[in-house]
């Protein structure tokens, strides 16, 4: 594969990362408030103790110095100390990544599977009741905010029917595989229902485009059964846009469920974002924003490079 293509993509990704770092730095320095002051609001703390804390947070240096210190620290994996828990931000974040990956990852996979099958069926039987129904459903689910779907599911299945737990990731004192699974059902369903419409629409339109191709007529003329024409000839040629969408959505796995996690008190990164907003806990927000953005930059880079490998037309200028 073309090395220059890979280097160019890596270069572009690094530039994006620097942009995010600069944005992250500038935005949070725009805040006029004094974090040390607000940390001890109403409490009697000596000026000396405050100054020591300011020095500890690095708030007493000049802006360029602070930026260089920030980039250096970040490169070493040091994201600062959380204002609210006084623990390193990186530790706080690390403990919350897996619940989010479990929730949004399962929802992403589930929605892609449902969406692909619905899209294939809709395109294959175009203008059938199923086609019109699934297109309508896709538009409808697009119009519902994911967290609102979560509220509706929560009210109906957890509070009214009392079939499923009302929030959190495991029962207090309990836990275990089945217990977590039960807690996962509702938030995962809310996300999967909001996501699947995209896949349905993309799969459907991509398959419809392929349907007019000559090689499908050839396949039929050879006497292949309908199901074989679809499975062997039509779908493999139409699936690429869906894979692109899936790869792009993987970048959003970490940041995709901020509001839904809030609704279900799911102990992940979204919940952490919401908690950090209350302070506001700026180092935590900064760390989360950096993580969310770099996740997307990294997945985009990997997708681009893999594409260049799979399809040489992409990587040769």
């Amino acid at each position, binding site marked *: 594969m073309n090395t220059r293509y890979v280097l160019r993509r890596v270069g*572009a990704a690094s*530039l*994006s990362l620097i*942009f*995010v770092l600069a*944005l*992250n730095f500038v*935005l*949070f320095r*725009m*805040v006029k408030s004094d974090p040390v002051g607000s940390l001890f609001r109403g409490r009697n703390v000596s000026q000396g103790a405050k100054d020591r804390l300011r020095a500890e947070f690095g708030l007493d240096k000049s802006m360029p110095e602070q930026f260089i210190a920030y980039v250096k620290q970040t490169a070493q994996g040091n994201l600062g100390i959380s204002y609210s828990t006084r623990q390193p931000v990186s530790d706080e974040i690390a403990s919350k990544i897996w619940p989010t990956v479990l929730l949004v990852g399962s929802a992403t996979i589930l929605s892609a599977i449902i969406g692909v099958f619905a899209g294939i069926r809709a395109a294959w039987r175009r203008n059938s009741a199923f086609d019109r129904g699934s297109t309508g459903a896709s*538009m*409808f689910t*697009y*119009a*519902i*905010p994911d*967290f*609102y779907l979560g*509220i*509706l599911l*929560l*009210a109906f299945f957890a*509070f*009214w029917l009392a079939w499923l737990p*009302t929030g959190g990731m495991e029962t207090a004192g309990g836990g275990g595989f089945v217990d977590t699974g039960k807690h996962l059902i509702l938030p995962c369903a809310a996300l999967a229902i909001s996501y699947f419409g995209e896949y349905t629409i993309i799969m459907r*339109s991509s398959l*419809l*485009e392929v349907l007019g191709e000559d090689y499908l007529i050839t396949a039929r003329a050879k006497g292949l059964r309908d199901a074989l024409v679809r499975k062997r000839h039509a779908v493999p040629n139409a699936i690429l846009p869906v894979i692109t969408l899936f790869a792009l959505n993987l*970048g*959003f796995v970490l*940041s995709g469920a*901020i*509001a839904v996690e*809030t*609704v279900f008190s799911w102990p992940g990164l979204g919940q952490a*974002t*919401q908690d950090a*907003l209350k302070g*506001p806990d700026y180092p935590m*927000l*900064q760390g*989360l*924003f950096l993580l*969310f*953005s770099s996740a*997307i*930059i990294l997945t*985009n880079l990997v997708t681009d490079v893999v594409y260049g490998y799979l399809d040489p037309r992409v990587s040769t200028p």
Partner: protein
Amino acid sequence: MTDPTGGAFESARDSALAEVMAPDPPAPGSRRSLNWSRRRKSAGEVWREFWASGQGKAGLIILVVFVAMALLAPLITSSEGLKVTNALGNKQNAPPSWEFPFGTDNDGRSVLTLFVWGARISLFVGIAATLVAIFIGSFVGIIAGYAGGRTEGVLMRVTEWFLVIPFLPLAIVLASVLSRSLSTIILVIGITSWPGTARLLRAQVLSVKERTFVERARALGAGHGRIVGRHVLPSVLPLVFANLTLTVPIAILSETTLAFLGLGDPLRVSWGQTLGASFAAGATSIGAWWYYLPPGLGIVAVVLAFTLCGRALEEVLNPNLRQR
């Protein structure tokens, strides 16, 4: 459908058509009226096709109902009902009744009042934020497409950066460092949703600027400002408009999420803010469905209506889509 000629055929055809169809220079003064009548005629055609499509008609009717409700809010219920202090005597969390058709919230306020006045803020923020986004997007897209070269490279790189940054986290960060007000929310949604428009317009301007009528204007000595203002802008305007109807629902959904997370203007009632308040007050757990259903269904209806209109308009303006 990928075009192997990279659109060369289309632009060749368009320029040929433009040459054939270019009228003989009419007497000065009549040219502008000719232009206007031509534009009016084509707008009429677009409208007829739009109205003939079922989804366009349905979307527009829903929209008119909601916009009318938002505009006539003071005639439907008094804004005094939004004040918690005026609702002290009312029963809290009461189910729908004759006095309160949508029930009351946990402060005893009528949910109908919250719904009607919330529509105003939700629609206003959605439309205003879209205008901000469309303005930035058109500005960047048209300049990049028209100027080309290094300017284009830099502008498109910046656009790419904004596309890469996840929308909601950036909006949360911006809303948390700025003061919480209506204009902050509008600005935040505006500056996080322009890149799509910029890319779309750049592509369109790239094809428009190669057409013969632009070349003719340049040959006649028109400056850049005049070419962009009189020739490029009018021909990309329909696209901007179609883009507008598809951006408003996204902006409304964004406002809802931000307001739900508590980043909206705390003094203004919007649908998202009502949803957040109902959730915080535990309406879900006590079964107060009348509290969280109206604002949510309002959002769904308005977003659906805008999407229907946008799709219908897109189909009318872009015949390639009609086959799907």
